[in-house]
């Protein structure tokens, strides 16, 4: 299973990486390219990745399927792939057939479905944060000013250390929520809230540093950075805003009170 899933991750990374790099920045896809690209995505079966095997999926565990969602965040493409994955899963859960073609928006979600979607967004954010970190490292190593690479300036090094630390923390929180949900039982909702609170904050800090270090170049629409930063600014507040999730966590902590606090930390 591990071999199969790692082959799947590699194929997905190759396909989505290719589609992501070839997508135009600053203009829409042609109808022809849009249809052709989606066909490649469907041929790999990605739209049903979150569907259980019995209902037509390919038998990935949910945690493994969420790794694919993370790869989707790592390689942003101009198709609503994650939305479609979620729509197909929700359709399968209610006994309906997978949806035709890309699904743009999800509506009328049950609380449970919204939680699944919120976790999917966290994993997308984890992937996109990775991409932003890599882009920023490459940029400061290549870009020369004052006769040396930006990476050689200590102020730049320290900004990047902050970026990397935030990315690491956001990802750790998202990974933990996926693991917590796989364990089953109570606590998964709290773990998702924690993940959304922490990774939402990581997005704010990481996008600020990434734009600062990319300079004016990264603010131009033709640069790919904005595909990631603008997506993060949307995702962090979807399926429950960051403040909504954060407040849910705080409400639970304050309802439990002083003496329950530390035991709550060690089971979270």
């Amino acid at each position, binding site marked *: 299973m591990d071999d199969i899933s790692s082959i799947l991750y590699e194929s997905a990374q190759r396909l989505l990486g290719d589609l992501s790099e070839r997508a135009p920045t600053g203009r829409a896809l042609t109808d022809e390219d849009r249809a052709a690209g989606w066909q490649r995505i469907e041929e790999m079966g990605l739209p049903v990745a979150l569907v259980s095997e019995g209902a037509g999926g390919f038998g990935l565990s949910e945690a493994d399927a969420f790794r694919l969602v993370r790869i989707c965040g790592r390689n942003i493409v101009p198709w609503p792939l994650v939305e479609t994955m979620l729509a197909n899963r929700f359709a399968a859960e209610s006994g309906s057939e997978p949806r035709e073609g890309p699904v743009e928006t999800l509506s009328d979600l049950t609380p449970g479905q919204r939680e699944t979607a919120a976790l999917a967004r966290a994993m997308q954010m984890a992937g996109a944060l990775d991409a932003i970190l890599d882009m920023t490292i490459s940029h400061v190593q290549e870009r020369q000013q004052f006769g040396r690479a930006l990476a050689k300036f200590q102020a730049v*090094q320290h900004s990047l250390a902050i970026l990397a630390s935030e990315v690491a923390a956001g990802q750790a929180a998202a990974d933990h929520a996926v693991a917590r949900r796989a364990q089953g039982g109570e606590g998964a909702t709290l773990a998702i809230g924690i993940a959304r609170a922490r990774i939402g904050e990581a997005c704010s800090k990481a996008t600020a540093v990434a734009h600062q270090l990319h300079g004016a170049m990264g603010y131009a629409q033709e640069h790919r950075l904005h595909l990631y930063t603008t997506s993060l600014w949307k995702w962090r507040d979807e399926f429950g805003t960051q403040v909504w999730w954060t407040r849910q966590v705080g409400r639970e902590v*304050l309802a439990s009170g002083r003496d329950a606090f530390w035991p709550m930390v060690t089971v979270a």
Partner: protein
Amino acid sequence: MTLLTFPAPVENEATEILRAEVRTFLAETIATRTPLERAESWNGFDREFSRAMGRRGWLGMTWPKEYGGHERSAFERYVVVEETLAAGAPVAAHWIADRQSGPTLLRHGTEAQKRAILPRIAAGDCVFCIGMSEPDAGSDLAATRTRAERQGDGSWKVNGTKLWTTYGHEADYMILFCRTSGPPADRHKGTSQLLVDMKATPGVTVRPIYDVMGQHHFNEVHFEDAVLPSDALLGTEGQGWAQVMGELAYERSGPERFLSSIQLLIELIGTLQGSESVAAQTAVGRLFSHLVTLRHMSRGVAALLDAGEDPTVHAAIVKDLGATFEQDLPDIARSLVDEEPDLQSTSDFAAVLAYTTMAAPAFSLRGGTREILRGIIARQLGLR
């Protein structure tokens, strides 16, 4: 960036049984400790408490039994450490020895050194201090000027000054990092570690340095023609730098790097308990999310240590994020609760807030400054 991935901690029932035992022990042993005393975190010093920990088998936990250890896993040790810190137990009399001096001895010590000292540490009966910083060697540790010279009879003559030596005035031993050959310009080359008996070495003077609160934890330790026996060398002569970096990895990797302000968070939650205020719920939700995430990352560092991997950069990330979290807490607390900070206050919140505010500047200095840690992270990213 897989280098930023923190492995998931291994959970098992044994660690949770141990956790319950530690909680019961602490509830009995430190019941009378006030919140303000608990806020001292790992600065609270009580030899009797450390001996009680030793009797329970909770010191030197991962070491071989032949040296007084208990051959338990790094995770079991982690449970004991985090529970004692979260409870604000007075751990200082065993803290440094159990965390870094013991492991350094185990790794580099001679058989005689290990047999003589490790069982005493595991019994909670041996206090260590750290001999790294100097007046002109703070973050730049390789600038050490303290020098030990080999005498004709094999003994070592030491001259120099160590600084910021926490509990040097209580310590039984110091692991001294110093130059044993060559000029200061040699930097990392020609340095070694030596074991100093703090109670029985003529020529060693310990002077107090009071911190901003007027408390005495730090010291200046002066060596003037102090003579150490020939068997005082710890590890390999000339390998001091590599050894001291290994020692720092132990020093930077634990949960103490984000739990220093935990008592203030506990008092804050106590004060805001049941609040329906959006600001209070959101702020506490944020702090809780940070804390839980830091804990998972820190346990990931313990997993790396267990797997024999180098956790340097992971530990640096946890310590840097952790210190920021600890230091942000006082200002967040005072933005939510309308109470004057006051060490003498009968309000636990007000007293702990006053204490933690004054303790906070040290959080991003001790054990490697924020700037040093960010340099380590940047190097790992390939920027330096």
